[in-house]
């Protein structure tokens, strides 16, 4: 079989190459502080952002990187890509899950080093699926369901600003998200259809996890971090109408998986 998965391309998925010196794969010491910036968790952060921040936090804990969390009201505006979370390492800023994973891998912190290539390929496919379905579903529920928008999302998004910014800014963000949802063909879906898609996604995850401890064998991988981020907020978020809490309870192994990750890495 000849495929294009030569050395360079595997490294793009999980880079384990030391940077300048050209010596073989040695883990480099990470001498600078790692700081994770995110919006205020209790008062300000909205559903989709919270999933992303949790995923990154879980990943960092799983790799054993020592970091601290800084909460800022303007984390999204500070970020180099406009999205949260982002990490600061020395003078570098890296935002969003995948770039952070690649950066960590370039410094030698990779969770799927010893796993078979096929499994790793499938893992990234599942991560895309989560991005495609769950992130869009969270954006939909947070910004396009009127009850949730009025009672939860808008007050949280605008809480850091004085009047009149506390209604102008959420309104602008709502228009932006609606535009994005229209482009992605999600705006025309009803809440029932969205819940259906989430159920399909959760079933796929549940089947992939089956009775294992983690998704890719005995040790955690990036997929575990992302799944934890999304499932945790689906389980614990208190939204009017509770669209998602019941869904997760239909898949026991996912609920137990979540509790396990939380107790292992977060306490």
């Amino acid at each position, binding site marked *: 079989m000849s495929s294009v998965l030569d050395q360079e391309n595997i490294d793009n998925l999980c880079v384990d190459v030391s940077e300048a010196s050209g010596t073989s794969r040695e883990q480099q010491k990470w001498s600078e502080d790692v700081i994770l910036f995110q919006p205020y968790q209790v008062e300000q952060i909205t559903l989709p952002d919270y999933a992303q921040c949790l995923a990154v936090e879980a990943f960092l804990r799983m790799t054993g990187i020592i970091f601290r969390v800084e909460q800022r*009201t*303007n984390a999204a505006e*500070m970020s*180099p890509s406009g999205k949260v979370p982002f990490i600061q390492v020395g003078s570098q*800023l890296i935002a969003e899950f995948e770039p952070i994973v690649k950066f960590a891998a370039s410094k030698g912190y990779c969770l799927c080093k010893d796993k078979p290539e096929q499994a790793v390929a499938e893992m990234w496919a599942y991560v895309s699926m989560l991005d495609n379905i769950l992130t869009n579903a969270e954006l939909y529920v947070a910004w396009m369901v009127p009850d949730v928008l009025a009672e939860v999302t808008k007050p949280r998004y605008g809480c*850091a*600003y004085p009047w009149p*910014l506390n209604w102008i800014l959420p309104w602008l963000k709502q228009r932006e998200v609606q535009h994005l949802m229209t482009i992605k063909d999600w705006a025309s879906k009803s809440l029932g259809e969205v819940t259906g898609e989430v159920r399909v996604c959760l079933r796929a995850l549940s089947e992939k996890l089956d009775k294992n401890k983690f998704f890719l064998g005995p040790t955690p991988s990036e997929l575990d971090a992302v799944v934890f981020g999304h499932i945790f907020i689906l389980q614990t978020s208190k939204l009017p109408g509770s669209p998602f809490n019941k869904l997760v309870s239909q898949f026991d192994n996912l609920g137990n998986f979540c509790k396990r990750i939380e107790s292992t890495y977060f306490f």
Partner: protein
Amino acid sequence: MGAVHAKAPPSGTLRDSQPTGIKTTSTFAPKKDDNVIKLDIDKIPVRVQRIVVDGLTRTKDDIVIREIRPLLNAKTFDELVHLSYNAKVKMERLGVFKNVVIAIDVSKDNREYGYEVLFEVQEFRRIDGGIHTSISNNDGSLDFQLKMPNILGRGERFSLDYTVGTKRTHGYSAYFKKPLNNNPDIFFGSTAYQFHGEYPWSGYKQTDRGIAFDLTFPTILGSHNIQWEGVWRDLRALTRDTSFSVREQAGHSLKSSLKHTFTIDTRDDPILPTVGMLWRTSQVQFIFRKHFSVLDIETFFNFFYYNFPSYLGQIFQMSLAGGLMRTLDPVASVSISDRFFLGGPLTLRGFNLKGCGPHSHDNALGAESYWLAAAHLYSPLPFRPGKGRFGELFKTHFFVNAGNLGNLDFSGCSKSFLCRVCVKMRWSYGCGIVLCMGRIARLELNYVVPMRVQKGDKANPGLQFGIGIQFL
């Protein structure tokens, strides 16, 4: 009495204020000396019978009547001429009329000493507009303006502007101005604007959206302006290389401020004055809500110029500026867009634009206090080419600039305070050519030698070019 032939007396005062726009008809052309009658116009009694104002369309009657009513009390011809001229000037300054022509004639019913005054006025068009260029410090811009003068009939003015600048700045604004109490020096103005500007020396770009209300009025000493402004500011990092200290301040904030400015300006020219002084001082109180904290900041800054000419045609100028900012909440900090900056081709020459003071990775951070002093000696161009016309716009100047920028610590004793302020100053000297552009802007080409530079400053020795309206 027949037509009066008015001739200006040989003494000074009336000639200096020679009115324009006064029509005097003369049907009598004196041919021989013995027919010439010498009249002393301040001894001629008058009784004003009628005043007619012709050409009113939308201007309201009451302001016109207020201005011309004093004419009815004129006792002598001289007084009548002066009063009518003053009325004309005031109405033009109020922005009510474009042009006023006065005609004084004897009254038609031939009463003794009876006179009639006719004001032929030309009002502004309803909508006017234009495209002009304007210059601000080291930046030029193109301004598209649509204005409606005298929109409600009492000298109110409404204008809409769209500005595009060279440094990727652009903005819109709407401005409304109304004179109060028929006095063109007292007016109320309100503005609503949106402005986007980039500040590459500090690595950020900012969009401001705000409204402002202000009141201007004169007193014996000078003119006061009180302004309230509310702005929504959106600050973002300009490039990926912006330093983290600036990036930390990105985001939305709301600022509300009350500002009082006092100005005395006795200069004869705003750009290259030969005599006179300007003193402008302002105090601003900010009420700032950024995210969760509330800040109160006071700022105070002061410009002072004094010019006096010497007998050789040289002009000596001395100027001083300073500013101080204090937060009443010790924990909170001032946003970078409110801080003071120092350095540039028109202020502290010899340094890059905003090149003095604390920097972080090439981005100027500014500070909360500064002082700046300059002394200039202007002299006409050597050999005086183009004397009297073009050459008068150019001047050579020698100058010395000194200044300091930093954050003051008020807890220490006054001696160490003074030491810090003076010891760590920067100064430079040099010479160059100044060009005055149409009483609006000033161009300078200088050769500067920075003499003392502090750590972190960006000096720019040698030739430096600057253009702007605010300079020291």
